[in-house]
């Protein structure tokens, strides 16, 4: 188990009802964090158009998660 801080943005923040939480998760990758928090908050957004960052650096869904990391979950972006 790892202690992970998860930050939610835009639609994800509204699903979760909070902007950030620190959780004890059995997660190896960014995708694990995404799925575990989706189950927790009842979100169904597919990863396809979503993005993830770890400790303020853009990452991949397969990126490894370490104890103490901050994982940022970005729903589909819509700039411009």
């Amino acid at each position, binding site marked *: 188990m790892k202690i992970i801080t998860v930050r939610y943005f835009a639609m994800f923040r509204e699903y979760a009802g909070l902007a950030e939480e620190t959780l004890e998760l059995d997660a190896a990758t960014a995708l694990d964090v995404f799925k575990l928090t989706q189950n927790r908050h009842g979100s169904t957004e597919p990863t396809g158009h979503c993005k993830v960052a770890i400790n303020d650096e853009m990452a991949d869904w397969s990126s490894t998660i370490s104890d103490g990391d901050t994982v940022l979950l970005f729903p589909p*972006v819509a700039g411009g």
Partner: protein
Amino acid sequence: MFGVSNERIDVEQLREEIKNPGSGGVCVFEGWVRNQNEGRTVKRLEYEVYEPLAILEGEKVIAEAMQQFPFLEANCVHRSGLLEIGDCAVWVGVSSPHRDEAFKACRFIIDEIKSRLPIWKKEHYVDGDSGWVNCERCANV
């Protein structure tokens, strides 16, 4: 350079900043808030921006444009916060010796900004409803 602003974009100032004695012209794209989207009447828009990464990624986009279409100067600013119909949401300007690089770099920058930066747009409709743009569509893919 790339920036995020919570206040009205000063387009004249941005244009001044990319003047260069070697430039023969400037290509500018201004994105405005329009009152319609996918059949719904929009009252106003709200942009949420995660600034630390938006600025890093925005600078990266401008550097990539410079590599592919060598120009002399470029500026890009994206708004955050609440915007009304007609407000400027994003401004891109590229100055270069010849127009071809300026047009191509400007197009590249706006396209990449829209698809890569952690920026989210919430539309507020006249009927009182609101929704995040892109999310519902992706949920149905």
